[in-house]
């Protein structure tokens, strides 16, 4: 069992739901970014999603676009993200999923990526713009190296497609809560619950819900019907606000702690 599968098994047997924070790797710089994810792990993050910065993040709203640009301005490349993951892995067992657009992975070489990611202790890769039909090659290369290709499903995904995606999926399914780009919202759309319910007909894999989740209340709502909640833009926005104030990892620790007090408690038990 890889780290993602054992994490969900552990959550399941503890009767808990998962918390999955997202940050853009290398924002505001690689060292601080590493400290941030270590703080998130320490707070009780169940899986960490690390965004690979890309020049043209067409599925992202302004918050994650800006964080991607901050990382790129520092020259952060895929190999740096892999190295950052390796350093993280020296200190933590929390699973890591890379969240990327296809082009930087393609340029790096998919086979090389799969090998290097496995060696660095990365557990899965989610490719925003590689839908099922286009993901066969990267999926088999990742699996051959013991990694999961995390698949996205959306409210617009038909049942027929859900069945196909579920059949090719591993790790967990990432359900996009609503039609749209990434970005914090104060409410989670009801389409998310409906989507998770539909997906259960086709798979026993855990389902995480993301896009727009930014409050403790929203996380609790998602936990009612899904296995994990992903929080991205809200944390990334807090990183952006913290940069001029300094001591970003501590500020993120406080912010995420307030977003998720139970998780903070759960974290100290580990």
């Amino acid at each position, binding site marked *: 069992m890889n780290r993602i599968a054992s994490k969900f098994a552990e959550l399941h047997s503890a009767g808990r739901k998962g918390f999955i924070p997202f940050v853009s790797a290398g924002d505001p710089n690689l060292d601080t970014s590493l400290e941030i994810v270590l703080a998130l792990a320490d707070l009780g993050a169940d899986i960490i999603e690390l965004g690979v910065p*890309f020049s043209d993040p067409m599925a992202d709203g302004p918050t994650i676009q800006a964080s991607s640009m901050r990382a*790129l301005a520092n020259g952060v490349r895929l190999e740096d993200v892999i190295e950052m993951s390796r350093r993280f892995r020296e200190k933590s067992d929390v699973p890591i999923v890379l969240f990327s657009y296809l082009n930087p992975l393609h340029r790096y070489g998919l086979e090389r990526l799969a090998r290097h990611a496995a060696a660095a202790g990365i557990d899965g890769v989610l490719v925003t713009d590689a839908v099922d039909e286009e993901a066969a090659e990267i999926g088999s290369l990742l699996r051959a190296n013991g990694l999961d290709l995390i698949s996205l499903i*959306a409210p617009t995904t038909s049942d027929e*497609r859900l069945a196909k995606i579920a059949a090719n999926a591993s790790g967990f399914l990432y359900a996009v809560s609503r039609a749209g780009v990434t970005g914090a919202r104060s409410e989670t759309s009801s389409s998310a619950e409906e989507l998770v319910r539909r997906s259960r007909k086709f798979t026993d894999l855990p389902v995480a819900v993301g896009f727009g989740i930014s409050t403790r209340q929203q996380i609790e709502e998602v936990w009612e019907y899904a296995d994990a909640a992903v929080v991205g833009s809200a944390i990334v926005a807090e990183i952006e606000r913290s940069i001029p104030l300094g001591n970003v990892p501590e500020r993120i620790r406080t912010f995420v702690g307030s977003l998720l007090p139970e998780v903070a408690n759960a974290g100290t038990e580990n």
Partner: protein
Amino acid sequence: MSKYEPDERGYWGEFGGRFVPETLVAPLDELTAGYFALRSDEEFNREFNYYLRDFAGRPTPLYFAERLTEKLGGARIFLKREDLTHTGAHKINNAIGQILLARRMGKTRIIAETGAGQHGVATATVCARFGLECVIYMGTEDIRRQELNVFRMRMLGAEVRGVDSGSRTLKDAINESLRDWVTNVSNTYYLLGSALGPHPYPLMVRDFQSVIGREAREQFLAREGSLPDALVACVGGGSNAIGLFHAFLEDNVRMIGVEAGGSGDELGMHAARFAAGGHIGILQGTKSYVLQDAAGQVAATHSISAGLDYASIGPEHSYLRSIGRVEYASASDDEAFAAFKELSATEGIIPALETAHGIAHAIRIAPTLPREATMIVNLSGRGDKDLMSVAEYENGRAER
């Protein structure tokens, strides 16, 4: 099936496909089904041809550029006059085709990107004609250099939204259009303006633009009793070029696409995707050549013409190059500028700066060809929109 048709996933060889967020798969499936249901539908094609003729002013003339030919002393140059269509560029052909499709699909809100503003104007025009809400995304750098077209779009009732991200040009306008579409999938139709993007756009745009080559082929045959030796067209995303080339692909006719050579060979100074720095990659829904750095980040581009200033190229062009069917060359800012002036002064036709890249290449090769040789250059658009840019460029050069 012809080797010039993509497979059912939208691939020409290894190029094309559909690389989009999952949310867009369903609307793209809907679009593909909608388009294929109409592609050979008689009633739809009758309607399309009616608007091409009576609204856009087709067929456009195939004009013999007599003075330019004489001056160059080589191959005879013919101009396919897309600049004479309503709104002044080939972009109207595709805009009409897609708006008729959007109406049949029951969409009420139209969005589009634009670079030079010609596609934005064409889209705003057909939206005005059919009374549909219209939002145009345009990079703020392009808004600056194509101001006249911004006024035209607003006059036509469109909302022009400036895009301030990235290089503030065509690529960034496409990103923003995709973000709008993914957010408003249910009522919104994305009217993409070039032979780019996820399947079925490259195919559909090519189909709607292929009227250019069908007419030109017929006109040339009627006039000369033979086929031309060569075709030349500028290539941004690739719609005017593939529109001219498509009807000739099975013929023994040489074809040359001309990219923007910009102001230098270094990455960032040009938009020649097939030159150094261009690698196969994935951008904005399709797999094709992409100007990028070693880390897979999309490179900044530069061209004197907003419409060619784009880091990727339509997938069918990458395929036609890979099988050796079409050659690609580039023309620099300076050469395009010189060609712009040359065609204006010699033929009384002011071309768009995009088009001037094709003219520049024709000027370069015509003298090397025999006098019996013939070529058709796609005069993709008129240059009124560019007069300010050209004046700026001229001043800039005077200062250097």
